[in-house]
């Protein structure tokens, strides 16, 4: 077994995060420590406002804790420069945002291709992988359509394809199946499982979807900023 296969894909040590609004400080995360092994399907569950998204943001290196240590694939990300952290995100992490966050001026194809551009993947390979991923999420025929020409479910599938196309080590998703019908939701879940097998990708979801919870290898329950 290789070393990377044994290093936890995520290790959080005593992280805390509070938001300040004027003179009011609202703690979002209070002293959370956790480890997630590679190739694991994890879900974070909890009521609204419990700190799920904040936790996901810190794992995804788009927010930093006030205290504590964040390691992703053994890399202490808090010590990386801003540019190095951006490159790290481009290489290692895929996102599926709750509200899709597709780039409106790009077609479905270009949205999915975007992460490969950041990795300087050659044009031919970029095209092949992008089309394959659109095929996998059932949107090959919508490749040239812009987000405003797609339905909510189609947008979500483009967002998922965008997160998966670079075969990252870690995919983070906030309610990824919320806008999908049960058949598509199942197809997406199956696709993620295949990715997990093929690319050793780890998945961390925030979800309320019982079907997704049922697929999980590991579940973290969070309440009032603490794991319970």
């Amino acid at each position, binding site marked *: 077994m290789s070393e990377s296969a044994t290093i936890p894909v995520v290790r959080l040590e005593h992280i805390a995060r509070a938001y300040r609004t004027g003179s009011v400080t609202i703690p979002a995360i209070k002293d959370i420590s956790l480890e997630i092994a590679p190739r694991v399907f994890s879900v974070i569950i909890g009521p609204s406002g419990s700190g799920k998204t904040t936790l996901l943001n810190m794992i995804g290196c*788009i*927010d930093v804790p006030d205290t504590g240590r964040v390691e992703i694939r053994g890399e202490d990300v808090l010590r990386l420069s801003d540019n190095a952290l*951006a490159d790290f*995100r481009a290489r290692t992490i895929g*996102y599926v945002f709750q509200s899709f966050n597709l780039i409106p001026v790009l077609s479905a194809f270009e949205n999915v291709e*975007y*992460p490969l551009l950041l990795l300087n993947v050659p044009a031919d390979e970029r095209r092949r992988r992008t089309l394959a991923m659109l095929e996998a999420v059932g949107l090959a025929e919508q490749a040239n359509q812009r987000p405003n020409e797609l339905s909510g479910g189609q947008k979500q599938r483009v967002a998922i394809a965008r997160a998966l196309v670079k075969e990252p080590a870690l995919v983070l998703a906030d309610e990824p199946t919320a806008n999908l019908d049960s058949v598509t939701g199942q197809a997406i879940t199956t696709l993620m499982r295949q990715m997990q097998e093929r690319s050793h990708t780890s998945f961390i979801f925030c979800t309320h979807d019982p079907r997704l919870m049922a697929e999980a290898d590991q579940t973290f329950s969070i309440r009032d900023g603490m794991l319970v």
Partner: protein
Amino acid sequence: MLFRLAIRNISRNRRRSIMTASLVAVGTLALLLFGGFTTNIFAALETGLVQGGGHLTVYRSGYFLFGPGNPAAYGIDDYQTVMRDFGDDPMLKGMINVITPTQSVVGIAGNFTGDTSASKTFFGLGVVGTAKERMRQWNEHGVGQPYVPDDRLNDPDASRGLIGRGVARMLGLCGQLQVPNCPVPERIAPPAGNAPPLDPGLADLAHAEQGDRPAAGAAPRIDLLSATAGGAPNIVGLEVAGVKTQPVKELDDNFVAMPLALAQQLVYGRGEHKVTGIVLQLRRTEDVPAARARLLALIAERHLPLEVRDFRELNPFFVQVVALFSVIFLFLALIMVMIVLFAVVNTMTMNVVERTPEIGTIRALGERRGTIRRLFLAEGAVLGALGATFGVVLAFIAIALINHGGFHWTPPGNTDPIPFQLAWPTRPALLLGTWLGLVLAATLATLPPANRAARSRIVDALRHV
């Protein structure tokens, strides 16, 4: 991808982008029109000066500072040999269009015919009529009115000349010369009995001059009185062939042009005939520095007591006009740049605010801050380039319309209206300078909002509504 995104983002809010690009286009249009206008003014002024006085004038050393008050003392010895040397020089030969001598003379002009008795100081110029006509045909820049021959100084009669309208008015010649818009003075009786007696020599000269007084209806004659090189007074008669209005009143009130031989007769009498200047008109103005350097080299080689002045030194008014219009252009450019800056800052700030979640998304995907900054700068540059290019097209259309509109005006330094023309803004300094300047202004104006976008925190940007 950067420019593809920039162009698509610009087309996202089409109306706003069109308004901003239109402002850049208006700025470009204004600068190119004014640039074309000033280029034409400079060309018209230069053409007028070079047609009248050539590009370079060789004087006896010291003439430029002291000579005009006493031209007779600053004559160039053996000027024909000097002219031949200059004209035959292999290097100068290819540059020179006309080389001709001139003689300046100052004195008093008087009209004492019939019951008229008027006199005034004059500044006269003796010229070679044929050379003067060739100089008038010079038009390197193709501006102004087409050449109209004027042979009034080419008459075989070496005593015919021209005077300024002011001289004609003050000497009471407007009626005889039928000068339009030139008032004739009321008769004022001279004081009786107490006029000082005329110097006997001068009286003889005047009498001799009056001996060939023309018959009624012929061209009027005036007397020109000056001091010779030896200091003695001298008088010649000048048959006034017509009026040549000068652009500046002071000059118009003193101007007398006459054949070179007459001016030499007035200044040098029976002595050696010299000239005060050797005028060189070049084929191209850009040859002035080279021609001047060559002239100075020849002068030094031959140890001649001569100096060389170019038309800019002789006409500080030209330099002042160029400086004035250049400063006005600079102010206009500054105003246009400010308008573009504010317009683009406003537009791009709105773009950044509207696209904040999108900025958060692409940052989360792994774009660096620098790329975000470059993306917005590219949008500003594309917006500026579109506007400036449109402005260039508009300027060419506007100039074509204006130049074919049949408008006329009298620019500074001219006496007659000329077609109102704008030069095509093809000078690289004007065309590229304006285009690049405004594109650069639009790009720089994007910097503050671009920095704001690049500095935003990803989670804050993603949450932005």
